[in-house]
């Protein structure tokens, strides 16, 4: 396959490929998740899981009170972007919104998410497929989209931090 060279200013093809491929799978699953009540400080959003424990996720850089957050949590490299262990959608709260994901097992977790600012139930993208709404991940996703390697965090009982894009 012919690799597209990164575009002058924004590497947008790379961003698109990485993010949209990842989030596409997540959207379907998160949409299936029950909408959580907007309880504060922690909006509980269990993904219909009866086993495992709950993990609190602090989502940073939320556009306050705009639309909703879609989250998906993965437990391994093999299942990353394919089969989440938990998923949730919650109303966007403050700039840091705490979300609870339940049904988690294992010691490592990677969460991907996006903020559906306009509330249309999907991640915004333009005619070229470039993202137009904030997306994010736990860990250190860098400029070019998340992966299991850059997104995984070790669970130690304290809240996990996920940052939305600028």
């Amino acid at each position, binding site marked *: 396959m012919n690799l*597209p060279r990164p*575009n*002058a200013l924004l590497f947008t093809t790379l961003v698109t490929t990485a993010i949209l491929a990842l989030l596409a799978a997540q959207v379907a699953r998160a949409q299936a998740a029950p909408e959580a009540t907007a309880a504060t400080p922690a909006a509980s959003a269990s993904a219909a899981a009866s086993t495992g424990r709950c993990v609190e996720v602090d989502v940073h850089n939320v556009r306050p009170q705009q639309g909703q957050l879609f989250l998906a949590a993965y437990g391994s490299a093999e299942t990353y972007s394919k089969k989440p262990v938990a998923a949730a959608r919650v109303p966007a709260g403050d700039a840091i919104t705490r979300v609870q994901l339940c049904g988690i097992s294992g010691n490592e977790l990677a969460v991907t998410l996006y903020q559906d600012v306009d509330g249309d139930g999907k991640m915004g993208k333009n*005619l070229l497929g470039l993202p137009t709404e904030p997306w994010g991940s736990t860990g250190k*996703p860098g400029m070019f989209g998340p992966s299991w390697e850059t997104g995984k965090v070790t669970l130690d009982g304290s809240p996990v931090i996920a940052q939305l894009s600028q």
Partner: protein
Amino acid sequence: MQRRELLTASAAGLAAPLAAALTASLAASLTGPAQAKPADAAVFAANVKQQPLLAPFAGVDDITGNRDSGALLLRGSWPAELRGRFYRNGPALMQRGAERYHHWFDGDGMVQQYTIGDGRVSHRGRLVQTAKLKAERQAGRFLMSALGTQIEGGPPGSGPDSFNTANTNALEHAGRVLAMWEGGSAYGLDPQDLSTQGPITWRPDLAQMPFTAHPKVDAQGHLWNIGTSGPHIVAWHISPQGQLLNVQVGALPYPGGMVHDMAVTERYLVVPLPPVSLNFGQPMGAGPRRFAMQAGEPLRVLVMEKGDITKRRVFEMPPQMVFHVGNAHETGDGRVVLSFIAAPDAWFLDQGAVALMSGQPQASGHIGLQIATLDMTSGRSTVQTLAGDVEFPRIDPRRVGAKARWLVTGAAWVKHPGRNNALLHGVQVTNMETGRAERYDYGAHVVAEEHVLVPKPGKTGERDAWLLGTTYDARRQATVLNLLDAAHVADGPIAQAVLPYVLPLGFHGNFTAV
């Protein structure tokens, strides 16, 4: 798999072209990129003492960066019939704290507005209040990576406009000022006070689509533009009233390369596609060469029908780097004639623009004015060279897309003693039929910026016009607005307005008569 590796490499935050940005002595003392950042602002401050022409690259900050001159000091004779607003744009915010961008193209945009009329000239300058600028002001540091500078520790970008600096061109069209970049939306500004209205979304599904900084406005006021993103090219058609008339998406013949400017003719959009690859993932040890001509690839020129961009021809000619076009027109026998400024390599993009930001002297750019004749029937092309060391080509705005005899450029031709950089020192008009040039040298102590051609009201001849452009006068330590008579360029300015401050050196602008 390769793509994944590239992604991973990029995400890991591999090196910016630091090597070229640093003095040899500093580079020698470096053991890793972590030490480079705090020193960048200090390196510039130290170097610029020896390079007074580069002082404007200090830039402005976003606390004190706004400029309002009031009535400017005038010299010579400003004609009463010249009334309007002259806009310019360019990178202006270059550093936050000790952290300084490495590449001229990285700085946040600042729109300059000169209001001329009633025997008065005044200046107003405003940083474009982009989403990026606002987020970084709040954070107190750079957050987003730029073309030539890798910023560590910031959030990822949501999309193109997260990186948008709106720093390349300014044009008043249909009642608002467009502050344009290359990879994302144009920003709209209010012509009355230069307040930022926000990114322009022509239609909801066109948010953050690439809208380059070099649209062409034809004599009827129609605005044509392109944008590129990865494998895509977008063609825009905006009405004289500022309404979106058409947008088309096509396939780029050379995906992902640098595409900066375009021309229009009566029927076509004409787009140079220089074979410059952008190696963002290159490790620091690989040296500058992040923007290099790709061996074996030609300079392509894409010619597309305005109404259906799938109807097109791709011309191939010897490899050259191209930033800017002058104009294009159709001949009666099926040919398209395109004027453009070319360089044999991507040296300026890769190293020249980096050296300027660190206050370093650098060699000349060896750029030249050329004319390509593109035969739409046979697909063959020829290229002719007209003039050397010129940039920022402009023509009579009433002849955009039609045949124009005269081309206005900035120019460098005098070997001024002690002047050791590639910045332009003069302005030139070139006869495109004979190659003959007339020019004016502002002097060793001056940097000449782009000059635009402003037709005299009620006149029709190409040189019944003025040239309007800015200079930086290092002796006076001031930015100066100059007016020349296009028919007597060698005589120099007939009028000047001297600003009480220094503006950052900018890129492009346009005049709107009122």
